[in-house]
């Protein structure tokens, strides 16, 4: 039986290649992502192990990682002396680390800005004894340890980028204190490497580092060495006894593992997000495989019936087809693993070229990667082939041998409608439950949404043959107008087997649905932002950190003070943004939600107008305003007490005085500026809104403000038009990124078109020979095939765009709480740029048609090159 299968595979080599290719690409992407992230993870693991090599015990504040990064608290420096006094402790090395300083190059530009990893501030103190190193992380490669306010050290990569050597004067920009100059006394490396993941390190002695971070007398933690002969585990309890509640003491090894686990959490998002596109590709591929097997089984029904007539049982026929599927799946999966390694190597070479250097070990291929990759390829091929295989095994021997046409379509159509609608409603229920229902403690809503979308795809796949006729008629009619006879033949061919055309179109549909969903979401976000910026922001100019930053990025308060002194400025309002946690009423500890929050000034409402207001917008000391979503989550109404947890001061109670909604409204939680400074520990601004005096235009004001902030290359002054342009380009970047990842799925969907067309051309050999004999030339023959591919692809695109718009609408309704107020269907390009055009649905409709032509080049050529007499003689 294996021999029959092997011969079956060999007899249809194109099918083998294309089916295996679909599996190969999907499995390749999944395993490539696994291999690459495993490699990075191993690299980080090694770094942490080495970083804690000389640390017996590490003290740190307890880190709780939440969706927005969690709150890490600073500890009192006084702990150092207390711990040092404990019996068995030999030395304590305190360290502090944070962000808030940029290094400027000789042109005054920020080094390593943009997409790159952040720049950190930390302390680098001279070792107190010869046999101890300060922090195992750094080693001083050149020069001396920085001492006092005027001295600093840098990592070698940053020093090289700025062209600094020991003794250079370096300009730095503090988010607290503004621009200043320091003398470079030392350059550090990391276990021999110039950089660690591309991060920048600005190093001072402990006191200076504390001041730079605005955390006088605070530390992030400490490394401890115990006396010779002491057992680490015996010293830890006595250290813990002096620590505050939210700090921990761990052995160096445990600390390394904990740090590695944090990285793992951060990386796993990356893994899940990227490999999702691999699974999408496989899902699309499964339709290709299903369709291929369906066509081949029907082409071979006579051969299979002959096997039955010769005494093969229906189970044997089933196994023959499934065995073929398994062979192809296995070949695709094995090659996919190889492709995965190639993808991992490609990312590994591409990222450093983009300025992102991550620690790496040798390529790490875990057994899990191999198992998941092989199983995915094999299982998906088998699942996709099972329906065609069952159909083959149930073939009626005599009717197949006689080549009878199928029975009446009416009864089958009714069954199809009932099944399709049932499946659709199930999918819709899952989708709506995920979007609007209360999932409680079950799986996250994303799971329901994903399952719902997948099931709706299957329902569409079941139902689509019913509408294949009218839709292909419309598309085909347009093509026939345009191209004449090849268009007419193409349309008729596309309609001769609605099942086949629909199954082929389904694979295109899925990828185009996701493209249309991405376009609709970004289009709607763009619409919302434009709506907000033009209607709800009434400032003439805003000053904010430039580039892509998280909203908590801040700058020195001196900037706003200087701006307020300008004659041209009528009024301004400062805003501080950071993270807090909001206690959900009466809920368990896990019910704390991380949220953006801000310190606001009473006049903010004159610059940024919320869409809905209840109560006041001017919180005084001890008062808080919430957005409607958080107010609902916390179960509070005006006059109630709201508990917030801050990084520095822990839990504090506020009285709710206002509920304001709308994305223009700064942050989601607002308290008085003085309360914010008291609880956050430092005074910094995140944004400044400015209004010009009467008679001065926004552009004029912007020019003056730009001069004023010239010393701060990390700040930008923007008019409302500038903000719109920036939002546009950021959204385009996001869309392009998603489209790049979806390209693979689109490609596999189109490969399905190639496959169907190749098999159809083969099936219609005699007919093509006849057409050639009665005078169809090669050109027309080619166009007949290409246009059919085009019609089927565009049929898929029509379904996909329809579904994409529907999913987009549902998602936006679900995300209304986040302030997405506009639902916009981006039929036309938003601008005549490549990005603008890529976001347009009509573009994708036509692009799919053109892709259909392109992907049918090979089958079209085969059709055109047939020898006429051989084709006519073909049966």
């Amino acid at each position, binding site marked *: 039986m294996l021999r029959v299968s092997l011969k079956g595979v060999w007899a249809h080599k194109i099918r083998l290649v294309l089916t295996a290719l679909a599996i190969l690409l999907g499995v390749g992407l999944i395993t490539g992502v696994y291999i690459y992230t495993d490699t990075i993870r191993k690299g980080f693991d090694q770094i942490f192990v080495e970083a804690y090599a000389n640390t017996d015990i590490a003290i740190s504040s307890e880190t709780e990682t939440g969706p927005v990064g969690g709150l890490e608290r600073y500890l009192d420096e006084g702990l150092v002396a207390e711990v040092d006094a404990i019996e068995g402790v030999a030395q304590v090395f305190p360290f502090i680390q944070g962000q808030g300083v940029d290094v400027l190059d000789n042109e005054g530009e920020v080094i390593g800005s943009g997409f790159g990893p952040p720049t950190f501030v930390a302390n680098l103190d001279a070792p107190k004894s010869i046999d101890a190193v300060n922090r195992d992380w750094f080693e001083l490669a050149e020069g001396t340890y920085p001492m006092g306010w005027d001295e600093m050290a840098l990592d070698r990569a940053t020093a090289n980028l700025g062209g600094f050597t020991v003794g250079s004067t370096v300009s730095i920009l503090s988010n607290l204190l503004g621009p200043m100059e320091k003398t470079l006394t030392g350059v550090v490396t990391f276990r021999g490497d110039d950089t660690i993941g591309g991060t920048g390190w600005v190093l001072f002695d402990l006191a200076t580092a504390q001041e730079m971070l605005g955390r006088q007398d605070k530390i992030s933690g400490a490394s401890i060495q115990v006396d010779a002969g002491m057992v680490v585990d015996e010293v830890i309890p006595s250290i813990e006894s002096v620590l505050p509640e939210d700090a921990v003491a761990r052995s160096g090894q445990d600390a390394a593992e904990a740090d590695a686990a944090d990285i793992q959490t951060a990386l796993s998002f990356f893994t899940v997000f990227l490999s999702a596109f691999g699974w999408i590709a496989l899902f699309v591929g499964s339709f290709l495989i299903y369709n291929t097997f369906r066509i081949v089984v029907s082409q071979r029904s006579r051969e299979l019936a002959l096997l039955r007539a010769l005494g093969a049982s229906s189970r044997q026929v089933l196994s023959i087809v499934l065995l073929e599927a398994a062979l192809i799946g296995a070949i695709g999966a094995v090659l996919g693993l190889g492709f995965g390694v190639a993808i991992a190597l490609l990312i590994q070479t591409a990222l450093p070229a983009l300025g992102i250097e991550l620690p790496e070990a040798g390529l790490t291929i875990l057994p899990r990667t191999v198992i998941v990759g092989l199983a995915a390829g094999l299982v998906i091929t088998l699942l996709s082939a099972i329906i065609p295989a069952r159909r083959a095994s149930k073939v009626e021997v005599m009717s197949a041998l006689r080549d009878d046409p199928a029975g009446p379509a009416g009864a089958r159509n009714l069954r199809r409608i009932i099944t399709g609608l049932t499946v659709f409603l199930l999918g819709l229920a899952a989708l709506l439950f995920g979007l609007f229902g209360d999932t409680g403690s079950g799986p996250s809503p994303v799971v329901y949404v994903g399952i719902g979308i997948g099931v709706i795809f299957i329902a569409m796949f079941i139902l689509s043959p019913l509408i294949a006729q009218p839709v292909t008629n419309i598309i085909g009619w347009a093509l026939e107008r345009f191209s*004449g006879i090849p268009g007419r033949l193409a349309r008729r061919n596309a309609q*001769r087997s609605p099942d086949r055309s629909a199954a082929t179109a389904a694979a295109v549909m899925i990828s185009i649905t996701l493209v249309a969903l991405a376009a609709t979401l970004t289009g709607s976000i763009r619409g919302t932002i434009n709506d907000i910026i033009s209607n709800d922001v009434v400032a003439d100019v805003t000053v904010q950190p430039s580039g892509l930053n998280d909203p908590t990025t801040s700058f020195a308060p001196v900037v706003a003070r200087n701006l307020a002194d300008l004659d041209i400025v009528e009024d301004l309002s400062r805003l501080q943004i950071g993270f807090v946690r909001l206690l959900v009423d009466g809920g368990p500890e896990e019910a704390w939600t991380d949220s953006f929050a801000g310190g606001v000034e009473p006049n903010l409402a004159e610059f940024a107008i919320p869409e809905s207001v209840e109560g006041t917008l001017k919180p005084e000391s001890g008062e808080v305003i919430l957005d409607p979503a958080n107010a609902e989550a916390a179960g509070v109404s005006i006059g109630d007490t709201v508990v917030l947890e801050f990084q520095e001061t822990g839990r504090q109670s506020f009285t709710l005085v206002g509920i304001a909604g709308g994305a223009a409204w700064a942050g989601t939680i607002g308290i008085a500026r003085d309360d914010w400074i008291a609880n956050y520990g430092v005074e910094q601004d995140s944004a400044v809104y400015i209004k010009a005096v009467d008679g001065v235009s926004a552009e004029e004001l912007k020019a003056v403000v730009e001069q004023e902030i010239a010393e701060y290359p990390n700040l930008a002054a923007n008019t409302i038009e500038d903000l719109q342009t920036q939002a546009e380009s950021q959204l385009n970047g996001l869309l392009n990124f998603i489209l790049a990842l979806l390209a693979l799925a689109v490609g596999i969907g189109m490969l399905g078109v190639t496959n169907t067309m190749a098999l159809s051309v083969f099936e219609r050999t005699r007919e093509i020979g*006849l057409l050639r*004999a009665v005078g*169809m030339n*090669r050109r027309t023959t080619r166009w007949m095939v290409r246009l059919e591919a085009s019609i089927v692809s565009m049929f898929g695109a029509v379904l996909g765009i329809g579904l994409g718009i529907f999913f987009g609408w549902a998602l936006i309704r679900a995300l209304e709480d986040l302030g997405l107020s506009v639902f916009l269907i981006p039929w036309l390009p938003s601008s005549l740029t490549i990005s603008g055009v890529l976001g347009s649905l009509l573009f994708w409709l036509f692009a799919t048609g053109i892709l259909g032509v392109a992907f049918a080049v090979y089958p079209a050529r085969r059709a055109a090159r047939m020898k*006429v*007499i051989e084709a006519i003689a073909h049966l």
Partner: protein
Amino acid sequence: MSGPAARAEGVTKVYGWGDTRVTALDNLSIEFDQGVFTAVMGPSGSGKSTLMHCMAGLDSVTNGSVFIGDMELSNLNDRQLTKLRREQIGFIFQAFNLVPTLTARENITLPLDLAGSKVDHSWFDSVVEVLGLEDRLKHRPTELSGGQQQRVAAARAMVSRPELIFADEPSGNLDSRSSTDLLTFLQQAVQDHAQTIVMVTHDATAAGYADSVVFLSDGKVVDTMDGPTPERVLDRLKSLEY
């Protein structure tokens, strides 16, 4: 009449190499006169189908020349051959003559549509009327009987007024009634419109409708017969086969 509608001069056609080498046509010369219904007969493997394919520009010859009118086919490229086939030659095959996705009307006008030329409606109507296809024009081939299908194919061959029509066993799959209808029509087309028809057949009854019969054997013309009757053709065939 001005010269033959088609002729072959010293045509040799060889398939394969070495041991599998087969000479299908062996230095064969023949003329098909205008306005004449010629039947080409011979036993299996005599080269009659190969001759038709070569004459129609569907296959190339190894040696010699083939002319349709004054046009020598070996000088033509694929595009010119295609144009020749749709403008000057009509085909009727034994079976699978029609494109299943097109209606009868569309099948009939296919060569004209491919050429982008206008349909001569009065000619179309008279051909359709003679063949009795008026009320079948909107049907697809699967909705037509075998005889109707072959008559649609005949109409397609006629509608572009070709120089000549090649028919390859046109009645081979038909019952005797349908077969008679079709052959009578072909005969009439020759009589009424001076149409040139070359029909390959091994059926003596069919050959009886032709004006003349050419007998092939081993790739050579071995005999011709004018004004054939089925009985005379059968007798001649017996002597050829043994």
